[in-house]
């Protein structure tokens, strides 16, 4: 068990870590996250004994770590750094065998059990086939797996990982982390993982420490800590936090930067969409600083979630229900308050035909209408031609047709510029 008590760390006369306290019990998988410069790596280097503490204590199984000798610490803690540079042509196996250093006397050769451990670690990390290759000649990802094998060969109770997978492709990233998670479960290893990747933390860690400017912003169970509020206050980014239906773990998805305030525009754009057809446009418009409203969309539909997340006013309808007159009217009112309306490339059935009719109505009332026609209407018309008919009317009535979302943005810009002649 690792216990960190109120530690401070100075680097080049500036305080990098302030009053950090936490614990990691046997079998715990702990993540440390935070923005660049928040002190993640420094924290890992401090608790592993590389950097001196200026205040506080680190206890390893109840013993003060500053009083333990390096070799004993090396039998307890193994570290996988972000990068390893090796200039001399050691073979991969020689490098992994160096993991046994803390167990060997000065002139002792590796014993049988050492070599067994080396082979086992190399098989686990799928590096056994590289054993006779020179580490100066293998790829960065292969070298990183060799270094991880070395840390496993060290046979410690604590494993510290500092961005261990930044060199690995997604396949090897998952493989290595799943392996580490397995060792964590089966051998009750304490694993501490420093990473930028919140989704890796959500997937593999049980506990999380969020660092901000050298202090702990929040710590606890991953599900309690990994919230949009915490992410926003630490990273200044709006993020979607959801439970992934497939993995069952939560995942986060950064949406946009807070650059919106700088590009504030007054114009209101109304977006008619549904079923996720308008989400990306909604985000783009919102990001470009427009006032956006949407309608009519069903509650819990993908577009509904996006709108709620971005705090966009909307005309909603009960889940899986056709559009009622009430919400149609609400939608129309919103349209009347807008400078232009955009009709997203949504498929039309009897349930949402009113969304198409409202566009026609708006056009008649003199509103600018932009129609996204990425997929031809015939392919998304489930109303036996009614939708196609209204589409023709829109065309005749002077609506602007755009081939994709990107074109919509430039069209909007043109339409809303004071000297537009469209």
């Amino acid at each position, binding site marked *: 068990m690792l216990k960190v008590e109120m530690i401070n760390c100075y680097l080049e006369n500036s305080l990098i870590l302030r009053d950090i306290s936490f614990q990691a019990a046997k079998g715990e998988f702990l993540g440390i996250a935070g923005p660049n410069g928040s002190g993640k790596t420094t924290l890992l280097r401090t608790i592993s004994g590389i950097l001196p503490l200026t205040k506080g204590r680190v206890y390893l199984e109840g013993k003060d770590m500053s009083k333990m000798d390096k070799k*004993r610490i090396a039998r307890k803690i193994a*570290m996988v750094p972000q990068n390893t540079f090796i200039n001399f042509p*050691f073979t991969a196996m020689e490098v992994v065998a*160096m993991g046994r250093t803390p167990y060997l006397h000065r002139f002792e050769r590796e014993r049988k059990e050492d070599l067994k451990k080396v082979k086992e670690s190399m098989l686990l990390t799928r590096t056994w086939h590289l054993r006779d290759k020179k580490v100066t000649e293998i790829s960065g990802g292969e070298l990183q797996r060799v*270094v991880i094998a070395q840390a496993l060969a060290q046979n410690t109770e604590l494993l510290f990982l500092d961005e261990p997978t930044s060199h690995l492709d997604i396949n090897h990233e998952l493989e290595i982390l799943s392996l580490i998670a397995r060792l964590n479960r089966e051998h009750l290893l304490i694993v501490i993982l420093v990473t930028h990747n919140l989704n890796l933390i959500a997937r593999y860690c049980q506990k999380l420490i969020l660092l901000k400017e050298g202090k702990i912003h929040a710590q606890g169970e991953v599900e309690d800590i990994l919230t949009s509020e915490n992410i926003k206050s630490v990273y200044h980014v709006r993020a979607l936090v959801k439970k992934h239906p497939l993995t069952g773990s939560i995942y986060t998805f950064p949406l946009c930067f807070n650059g919106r305030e700088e590009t504030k525009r007054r114009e209101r754009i109304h977006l008619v969409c549904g079923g996720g057809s308008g989400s990306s446009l909604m985000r783009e418009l919102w990001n470009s600083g427009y006032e956006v409203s949407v309608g009519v969309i069903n509650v819990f539909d993908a577009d509904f979630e996006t709108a709620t997340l971005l705090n966009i006013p909307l005309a909603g309808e009960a889940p899986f229900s056709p559009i009622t007159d009430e919400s149609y009217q609400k939608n129309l009112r919103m349209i009347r308050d807008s400078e232009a309306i955009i009709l997203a490339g949504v498929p039309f059935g009897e349930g949402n035909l009113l969304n198409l009719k409202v566009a026609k109505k708006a056009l008649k009332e003199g509103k600018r209408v932009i129609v996204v026609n990425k997929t031809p209407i015939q392919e998304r018309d489930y109303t036996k031609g009614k939708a196609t008919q209204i589409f023709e009317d829109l065309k005749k009535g002077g609506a602007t047709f755009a081939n994709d979302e990107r074109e919509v943005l430039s069209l909007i810009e043109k339409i809303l510029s004071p000297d537009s002649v469209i």
Partner: protein
Amino acid sequence: MLKQRRKVIGFLFLLGIATFWVSLSIGSVSISVKDICKIIIGRLPFLNNWIKNEPAQKYQLIILNLRLPRILLAMLVGSGLATAGVSMQGLFKNPLASPYVVGISSGSSFGAALAMLLLPGIFSVPLSAFFTGLVTIFLVYKISRRNGRVPVETLLLAGIAVGLFFSAITSLVMYISAQSVHHLVFWMMGGFGGGNWSNVLRATPFIGFGIPAIYYFSRELNVMQLGEESATHLGVEIEKVKKILLILSSLITASAVAVSGVIGFVGLIIPHITRIIVGPDHRIVIPVAALIGGIFLIWCDSLARTVIAPVELPVGIITACFGAPFFIYLLKRR
């Protein structure tokens, strides 16, 4: 691999012995191996009774007072410089480091020259050389270290700058000195012209201690190649080991410089050749490099004294002729 390494060491031992005898026999006067055996055995207790009709007195003088100490000195200096080179390359994690390139040789030669002029004595010269060599290496190290790493460019440039500075001061000291400095100039070029028993005596304790002491840290040197932090995580007391290795390398280089002047490139090319033959594991590189270094310098010296005999060349010229192209090749290959 292990078996192969044993073979290499065995072969080098035989080569060393052959080198020893051949180099004793060649020179401005050729002396047969049979006569050499007689002379050397004749000097050993008990065995000397067997020797009948000893070779002429003049041959005995050449072998015992001129060639033998000279060859022993070349062997000591070669082994020492090669080992110091291995240690520096490992320490700086940089295959282009060597006592000569990083400036210790120039620094030491300043101290040695100063001592030769001001307080000549059997150990004052190597100790003074050791002191200035140590100052040089700490200076170069401090200058070239950036964020915990020692990039090759800054290391080489800092080594050249500090080395040139000390060479300049050495020249200055020699220039303003009232004494005759002809012997100093010759010594500076690097050679075993001063290969006598007192120089052998002078270098033996330092190099004889330095090589095994560096070997003692061979496992640490291996682990240090992963980076200083990784080495710490494997239980190595990195700061302590680094300082000890720097001191030992300086000690060896300084005593080599004190007895034979500045002989460049041995500390650079021998570690490389060794790694090509036996791989990078310091547990094997250190003894093999010491063997090859000794053999190499004996041959260079034999060449120096025979190529335009009876005039002899400073051996530094020979090693530079081999070493400089090799160094350029290494730089290009990077």
